[in-house]
């Protein structure tokens, strides 16, 4: 077919039937002298032109069918036929805002291109693709992503991808390998304790440890559980829990099974960085998480044919087929569009890791426990049509190209062979979440609805907590997270005494706990102003709908593990003599008494309080250790006692009673997120605040 120019009245596609129908359509309309015609205006530019060209694509010298052919900046896509050819319509107006580049993309080759294809000619545009070597190269050294203040080298991603880098550098992904909380849980240390004296007072042991990031031998307070001591009780660490496979995936050399403390340099400083994610050539969801197999990294192994491309011929994987820059070696992969890349780490089914411990084979026939199940929660929910990025990587319409070096000086084009992409095509690399600096998404997931009735001097509040907006359970991810519902009632400024109803479970935190039969007037560390919350077990269990066996019918209510607890009364400590405590009113009979705190008001960002037994409820995946402890870190887990986290669109309704002293008591419900269990945070001195996700009054 000869090359020709067509006016804007032609189709951008090479579809002959559509073009023929269009011509006929226009002819018919023009001949229809009686047709209604709308008033319209003149002006505007004259008709634009497309340049029709044929593109011939070969793969290793052989014409290849099914290759994508595209023009940079043009949303149209064409596919090569059995002869390796595609007839395309080049939009010359692209030149006004970018480079004129025609490309061909194939899943087995780096995107090839022809720069400035020129005017219409009968000669085809020839693009020769070459299969890339699919052998991962352990000798490759992961690249430096750079930072906004350190981007002088073209070897740094930040050099060209300035906006994306500036977003990424402040994320938890970037800090994944150097997160001090992770390292304390890895090594069994408390970094916040700086002296041997303080360590001894806390019950720890001041001893040598390996400093994260440097490998240096330093003194640390060894206190509490840790991956290394728990999994290697006998001596030199040989089991590392797979932590580094996701937290420090960029450790050079062998992939998977590495010690987190091997992360130094780029691997430590930048955690989950550009050169890890964009080296992911494939995903194997059946393989161990992270770079231990699920993320199929392909580090370049080919020598470049020409100097200037580095030691290895570049290859990068991403969501786009239109990245022809030789310094990138772009290859499109679908797992960047859907949730599978995220599933590389945000889905973790784990066997028991602690030596000598075992899980209940009847309860867990697959011999693994669901630890992180965010991907599965999303995949089986009603929002699986919206990929993770739709919430966590919002578009940035102010950026025309991910490679935006020249934004600063010369306009919106990319660095080389670049063009302006449609607004929103560039996604922010921020991974918004409730725990980012801005608290993004906190207000979108959960909703609270309140109903109340007043009778016989008692107000009964019915509170519905619903996951209306998250595509996965809330909370999700790390099982140390929890959500607490806290319900209060007021008559004016007077806070009403709770008289019954659902309560915050034990993972809401307590200073001390006593069971029936123990001396409830004796508390080791009570202080005036603290409270004792008395709770009674009904003997029944909440039959909630949770994730996996907690919702698919495999577990009975009892096996789902959430005993129904009812508040009996709350008493305030008014006097302390030694361990002998007196209260404002006598303690009633109950099954459990929690000594806790009762903050006057719960505000967003306030330090977390011990709230077990308070009027409210709680939502968490409760992991249990071999010693029966609850809410343990996942490397200690031998069971999941309960998992009542709210799946997408799921709701839980609780009831709360208060003694009413007015005709219109006001009910306040708050849903707060906690990053760690209260007792763990207290032991390890992690900063723990009440992060308010939702609040309602009625």
């Amino acid at each position, binding site marked *: 077919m000869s090359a020709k120019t067509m006016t804007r009245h032609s189709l951008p596609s090479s579809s002959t039937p559509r073009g023929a129908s269009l011509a006929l359509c226009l002819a018919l309309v023009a001949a229809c002298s009686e047709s209604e015609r709308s008033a*319209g205006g003149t002006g505007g530019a004259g008709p634009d032109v497309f340049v029709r060209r044929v593109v011939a694509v070969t793969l290793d010298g052989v014409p290849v069918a099914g290759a994508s052919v595209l023009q940079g900046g043009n949303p149209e896509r064409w596919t090569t036929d059995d002869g390796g050819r595609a007839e395309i319509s080049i939009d010359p107006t692209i030149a006004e805002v970018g480079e004129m580049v025609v490309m061909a993309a194939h899943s087995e080759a780096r995107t090839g291109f022809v720069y400035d294809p020129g005017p219409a000619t009968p000669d085809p545009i020839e693009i020769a693709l070459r299969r890339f070597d699919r052998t991962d190269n352990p000798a490759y050294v992961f690249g430096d992503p750079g930072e906004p203040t350190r981007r002088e080298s073209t070897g740094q991603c930040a050099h060209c991808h300035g906006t994306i880098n500036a977003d990424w550098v402040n994320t938890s992904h970037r800090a994944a390998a150097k997160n001090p909380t992770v390292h304390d849980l890895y090594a069994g240390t408390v970094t916040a304790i700086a002296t041997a004296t303080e360590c001894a007072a806390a019950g720890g042991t001041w001893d040598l440890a390996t400093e994260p990031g440097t490998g240096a031998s330093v003194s640390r307070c060894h206190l509490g559980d840790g991956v290394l001591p728990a999994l290697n009780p006998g001596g030199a660490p040989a089991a590392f829990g797979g932590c580094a496979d996701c937290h420090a995936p960029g450790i050079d050399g062998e992939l998977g099974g590495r010690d987190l403390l091997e992360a130094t340099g780029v691997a430590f400083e930048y955690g989950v960085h550009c050169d890890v994610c964009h080296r992911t050539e494939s995903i194997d969801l059946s393989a161990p998480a992270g770079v231990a197999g699920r993320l199929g990294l392909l580090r370049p192994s080919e020598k470049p044919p020409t100097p200037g491309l580095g030691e290895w011929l570049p290859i990068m994987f991403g969501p786009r087929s239109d990245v022809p820059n030789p310094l990138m070696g772009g290859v499109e992969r679908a797992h960047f569009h859907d949730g599978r890349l995220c599933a590389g780490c945000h889905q973790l089914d784990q066997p028991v890791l602690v030596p000598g411990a075992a899980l209940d084979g009847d309860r867990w026939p697959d011999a693994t426990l669901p630890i992180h199940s965010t991907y599965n929660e999303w995949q089986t929910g009603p929002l699986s049509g919206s990929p993770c990025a739709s919430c966590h990587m919002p578009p940035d319409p102010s950026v025309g190209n991910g490679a935006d070096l020249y934004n600063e000086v010369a306009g919106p084009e990319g660095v080389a062979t670049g063009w302006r992409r449609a607004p*929103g095509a560039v996604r922010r690399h921020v991974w918004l979440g409730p725990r980012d600096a801005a608290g993004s998404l906190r207000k979108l997931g959960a909703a609270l609805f309140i109903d109340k009735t007043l009778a016989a001097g008692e107000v009964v509040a019915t509170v519905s907590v619903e996951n209306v907006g998250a595509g996965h359970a809330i909370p999700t991810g790390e099982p140390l997270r929890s959500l607490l519902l806290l319900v209060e009632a007021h008559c004016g400024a007077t806070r009403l005494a709770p008289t019954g109803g659902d309560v915050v479970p034990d993972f809401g935190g307590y200073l001390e706990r006593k069971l029936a039969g123990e001396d409830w007037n004796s508390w080791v560390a009570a202080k005036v102003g603290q409270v004792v919350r008395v709770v009674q077990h009904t003997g029944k269990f909440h039959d909630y709908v949770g994730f996996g066996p907690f919702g698919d019918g495999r577990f009975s209510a009892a096996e789902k593990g959430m005993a129904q607890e009812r508040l009996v009364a709350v008493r305030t400590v008014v006097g302390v003599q030694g361990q002998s405590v007196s209260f404002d009113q006598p303690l009633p009979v109950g099954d459990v008494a929690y000594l806790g705190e009762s903050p006057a008001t719960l505000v967003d960002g306030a330090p977390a309080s011990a709230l077990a037994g308070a009027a409210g409820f709680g939502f968490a995946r409760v992991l249990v250790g071999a010693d029966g402890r609850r809410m343990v870190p996942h490397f200690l887990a031998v069971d999941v006692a309960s998992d009542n986290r709210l799946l997408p669109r799921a709701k839980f309704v609780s009831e709360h009673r208060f003694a009413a002293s007015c005709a219109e008591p006001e009910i306040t419900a708050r849903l707060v997120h906690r990053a760690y269990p209260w007792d763990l945070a207290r032991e390890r001195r992690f900063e723990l605040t009440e992060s308010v996700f939702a609040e309602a*009054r009625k």
Partner: protein
Amino acid sequence: MTRNAALVMLACLGCGEANEPVAARASPPRVLSSPAEAVDLDADPLVVHVRLRAAPALHRIGDSEYPGFAYNGQLPGPTIRARVGDTLVVELENALEFDTTLHWHGLSVPYAMDGVTWQTGAVKPGETFTYSFEVTAAGTFWYHPHFDSERQVDLGLYGALIVEAPTEPALDDELVLIFDSWGEFRAESGSGGHGTPGTRPGALEPALGPLHTNEHTPDPGRWTVNGLVAPAFPSRSGTSLRVRLINASNDDYLDLHWSQIRQIASDQGLLPALQTPERLLLAPGDRAEVEWLLGGDDFGIHAEPYSMHGGVALGESHELLRVETEGSRTAPPAPEWPFSGTAASSDPGSTDIVYVFTGDAGGSDWRINGERYPDVTIEELDLGSTAVLELRNASATEHPFHLHGHAFEVLAVGGVAPAVRMLEDTINVRIGEVVRLRLHADNVGDWMAHCHLLSHAEGGMMTVLRVRP
């Protein structure tokens, strides 16, 4: 002959039977004026009776012609003008090859008159349906089909509906500006939101191919004002004008600015006080009214690049229209508007209904509360009740939320209460934003609640709010 061509031929055969004025083939001048008004066929001063004929039409956009549709052969359709308390009677003749309806965007009308096809029928080809209702609120409204909307609105079926209040001052002149961005509809992108799944005819689709824009990148050359590209509005200095602005675009936002924006009204008539924002954002479906107090200086109405994918976008400002003033008289004094000064209602803190918007940029799966219309959960309110609606945008684009049959008061946007009472029927919800609305359920019916990005509504982002007797 392809199916598409055959359908166009049928459409043209229908055109031959039309008894409507035929616009001149030559390029009309770029002089802007308000759309011609519909003729009131009823002598009763309390009744406005007009006829609208929806039929194929050939639109001239810039220097090019595009097959589309029009009411009474006019783009935009005839402006309907009424006064508060009037009975409006509109005979709609469907001279299209497919079903259509008329929806009165922003007006509170009886459910049977709302022009939707949820549990009611559309107007079939060749049929005439008479809409009749009392207009109860003053303001700038518009009408458009609510069936196959993405296609029919994009191809020209829309017009203004002006409801006047006797208490409002008359200015020297009035100008109705209906903005539209051409070429947004892509037949293959729809999924049966407004229309009936599987029956979306694509007769004119090929002719729109060249107009396809780049993932909602508004091409400045495709914006029209009353059907004109970059027109000029001639006026005299010393003149005061009431300017009514309507964004009839399917999916494109207007981030407008000019030398001095003096906003007097929004969706639901006069604001409580004059507002002088630096920019005026009109999401699809939005309206606003401003006053122009013209001195001797010409000025342009500019649109800044704004994307549904997050707002202010990369690109260049462009002039949508130019106001050319003749003479050197000074600007007239500001008219005395009967602004109420009403403060915004306080937020009660409780929520009755939450609508969460989800979907990804570039996708076609658009949901409210995880559901795609028409498979939706119907929220219900009792007639006479007052409810708080909370809108949450958990998607990758902005969404102009539109509720039928009711106006609502904006309680808070992103946690911030408005400075003055805002009564709207369409409100934009930015990415990640939470908007709280106060709704007085005073109109019985199954009311559509949806994103007014018509591609999103077609993609399923629509639900039903029932007000029960």
